[in-house]
C-alpha cells in the first residue's frame, strides 16, 4: 500500500471510529455506569434516525431534528427506566438477565412499530452537507463523516465534563461505584439513575440523526448495531467517555485498514479479534474502572 493511501485509510478510519463512538456513547452511560443491559439501545438509535427522517419531510435539518428530539427521548428514557427499575431492579434477583430479555422484547416492539408506520423500505435524509466533501490536497473528507466527528466530540466531551464537573454528574459516577456511599452522602441513588438513564437515551436522538446522515436506515438496522455498540462500550472500559472515543477509533481504523488490505471480507473478524485480544490483556476494557 502506498503511503498516501495508508494515511487516507487511517484518516477515514478515525472518522469512522468517531461515528462508532457517537452511536455507542449512550450505551457507555446506560450500560457502563448503570449496569442496565440496554440491548434496545440500537433500536432507540434507529428510532432517532426515523425521527430525523420524519421531521426531514417537513424540511427540518436532520441535526436540528436530532436536537429537537433530544428532550422527547429524555422523557422516554425516564419513563422506560421507571418501569425497568420498578419491575426488575427493585425486585432484586437476577435483574440483569431478565432485563436482557426485557430489552430484547422492547427492541422487537420498536422495530415493528417502525415497520407499521414507515414501511420496510430504506430511508435517507437530505441535507446540504450530505454528498459533499472537503478537499485537503489530494484527500477528500466526506462532510457527513466530518459531522460524525463533530457529534462524537460534542457528545463525549460534554458528557465527560458533565460527569466530572457537576454535582449530579459526579453522583452518577459515584452510583456506578458505590450506591451505599452515595445514599449516605444524602443523594437518592434511584433518582440519580433515572436521570442518567434518561441522558443515555437522549443521546440516541442526536446519534440516531447521525446514523441516517451517514447511511440509509431501515427498521431492522438496529440488530446490526448490537455487536458494534456493545463492542465499543466494553472495549472502552465501562463508563469511560474518553475511552469510548478511543475504542471507537481503534475499531474504525482497524476496519478501514483491513478494507484496504487484500482480504477486505475479513474486516469483521479482525475488528472482533482485536477486541478479544485487548480483553485478554485488559479484562475490564481499556479504561476500566
Amino acid at each position, binding site marked *: 500500500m502506498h503511503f498516501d493511501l495508508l494515511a*487516507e485509510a487511517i484518516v477515514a478510519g478515525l472518522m469512522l471510529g468517531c461515528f462508532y463512538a457517537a452511536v455507542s456513547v449512550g450505551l457507555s452511560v446506560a450500560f457502563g455506569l448503570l449496569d442496565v443491559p440496554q440491548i434496545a439501545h440500537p433500536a432507540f438509535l434507529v428510532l432517532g434516525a426515523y425521527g430525523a427522517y420524519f421531521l426531514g419531510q417537513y424540511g427540518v435539518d436532520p441535526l436540528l431534528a436530532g436536537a429537537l428530539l433530544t428532550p422527547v427521548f429524555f422523557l422516554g428514557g425516564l419513563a422506560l427506566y421507571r418501569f425497568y427499575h420498578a419491575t426488575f431492579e427493585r425486585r432484586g434477583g437476577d435483574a440483569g438477565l431478565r432485563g436482557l430479555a426485557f430489552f430484547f422484547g422492547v427492541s422487537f416492539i420498536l422495530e415493528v412499530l417502525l415497520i407499521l408506520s414507515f414501511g420496510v423500505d*430504506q430511508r*435517507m435524509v437530505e441535507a446540504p452537507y450530505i*454528498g459533499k466533501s472537503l478537499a485537503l490536497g489530494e484527500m477528500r473528507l466526506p462532510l*457527513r463523516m466530518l459531522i460524525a466527528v463533530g457529534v462524537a466530540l460534542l457528545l463525549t466531551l460534554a458528557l465527560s465534563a458533565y460527569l466530572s464537573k457537576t454535582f449530579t454528574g459526579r453522583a452518577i459516577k459515584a452510583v456506578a461505584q458505590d450506591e451505599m456511599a452515595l445514599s449516605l452522602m444524602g443523594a437518592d441513588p434511584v433518582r440519580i439513575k433515572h436521570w442518567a438513564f434518561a441522558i443515555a437515551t437522549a443521546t440516541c436522538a442526536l446519534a440516531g440523526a447521525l446514523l441516517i446522515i*451517514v*447511511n440509509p436506515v431501515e427498521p431492522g438496522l438496529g440488530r446490526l448495531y448490537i455487536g458494534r455498540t456493545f463492542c465499543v462500550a466494553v472495549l472502552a472500559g465501562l463508563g469511560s467517555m474518553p475511552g469510548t472515543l478511543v475504542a471507537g477509533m481503534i475499531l474504525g481504523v482497524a476496519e*478501514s485498514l483491513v478494507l484496504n488490505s487484500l482480504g*477486505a471480507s475479513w*474486516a469483521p473478524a479482525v475488528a472482533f479479534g482485536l477486541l478479544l485480544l485487548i480483553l485478554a490483556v485488559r479484562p475490564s476494557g481499556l479504561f476500566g474502572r
Partner: protein
Amino acid sequence: MMKYLRAHFPWSAWTLLSAILLATIFTPATAQNAKPIRIGLSMAQTGALSGAGKSGLLGMQIWRDDVNSRGGLLGRPVELVVYDDQSNPAMAPGIYTKLLDVDKVDLLIAPYSTNVAAPIMPLVKQRDVLLIGNFALDANAQLRHDKYFNIMPWASVKDATLPLFSLCKKLGAKTIAVLAADAEFAQTFADGIRAGVKANGLESVYDQNYPPNTVDFSSMIRALRATKPDVVFVASYPSDSSAIIRAVNEIGVGSSVKLFGGGMVGLQNASIMESLGSALNGVVNYHVWAPEKTMNFPGVLDFIERYQAKAKQAKVDQLGFYLPPFNYAIGQLLADAVTATKSLDHKILAKYLHENEVKTVVGNIRFSATGEWANPRIVYVQFRGITDKNLEQFRAAGKQVIVAPDGFKTGEVSPFSQARE
C-alpha cells in the same frame, strides 16, 4: 329481555339479521360449487428482502383481484395463501410443507430470491409439483426439475455479463476494478464477471469482496481510484449501494472511469433512487424493466399505473419497476395454463408451459428445458439528467436509458465521467 330488545332494536334490524343468518345457512352449498383455487407462496414481509417482497406481493394481489373480477379461473375464485418467511431460508421448508400438506394448495409459487428458494427445490422435486420460481438465479441447475418455471428474465449469470462486456468493448475499456459484497447474489454476479475478464481483453486492476453492512466505503473508493480503472464493476445490496454511490460522489473515482455500476441491487427501488437523486447520473446498472419505449409490452403501463395508485397507501415501493410486473406475470402464467388446459393437474400444466409461449405484461415468455426464459432479457440502464428530490421524474422515459443489449436499446452509452457533467 325481549321487551328491552324490542324497544331498542327496530324491526328492520331484525329482518337484516335473519337475512344474514339465512344467507350463512345457504352459502355452504354455493361455496362448494365455487371452491376457491388456492395458490400458495411465502414472501418476505420482514427482514432484508422485505422491501422487494412486499412490492411483489402487491403485484400478485392486483392480479388476484383482476382475475376474480373477471369471474376467477375455471369458474372458481382465486385465493392467495401467503406466509412471511422473514427473509430467512430456514423458514421455507416448514412453510412449504404446510402449504402442500395442510393448506393443500392447488398451485405453488416459490419464495422471492435464490437463497430462500434453494431449500424447497428438493422438496418440490420429490413431491413432483409445479413451481413458479420468483427471481431465484439458476435454482434448478442441479436438480433439473421438469415442473419448474422461473419468472426471472435471466437464466444464468452469463445473460447478465455478456451485455455488460459488450458495453466495456464499446467504450474501449482496457482495465476493470471489481467491488462486490460478500453475499450470495453479488458473489455469483461478480464471479461471472471475473470469469470473463481475460476473454474480453480486459485486465483486472482491483478486486475486493467487502463484508455485508460495511458502514463507510470512502477508503475503499480511494484505493480503487488509485488503480485508475476504465471500468468499475460493483455488485452490492441496497444499503451498500447507496453508501457506495454517496462515497463515489464525495470522493470521486477519477476521470479514467468510463463505466460504473453493473450489479447494484437497490438502484431499482423508488426510495433509494429518489434520495440519491443527481448522484445517480452516469451510473449503468442492470434492470428488468424500465419505462422506456422498447419495454412497452401490452398491458404493462396500465398495470404500473394501477400499482402506483395502490403502493402509496400500502407503504411499499412507489414505482414498482422491479418485482411487481413480474409477479403480476406469474399470475398470468398460471391463469393462461389453467384456462387453456382447463386443468389443475401439474403434469398437464407443466407440459403446456413447456410447449407454449405465454403472453404477459412483461412480454411473451417461452421457457427452456430447465424452466428458465428461453430468450433471456436483462437490460442495462444508464441514469441520465436526474435531479434531486424528485420521484416523479423516474416515471418518465429518458431518465433510465437502456444502453444494452442492442435489441432493447433506447440510447447509446456515454462514458461515466462525461455523463456526470
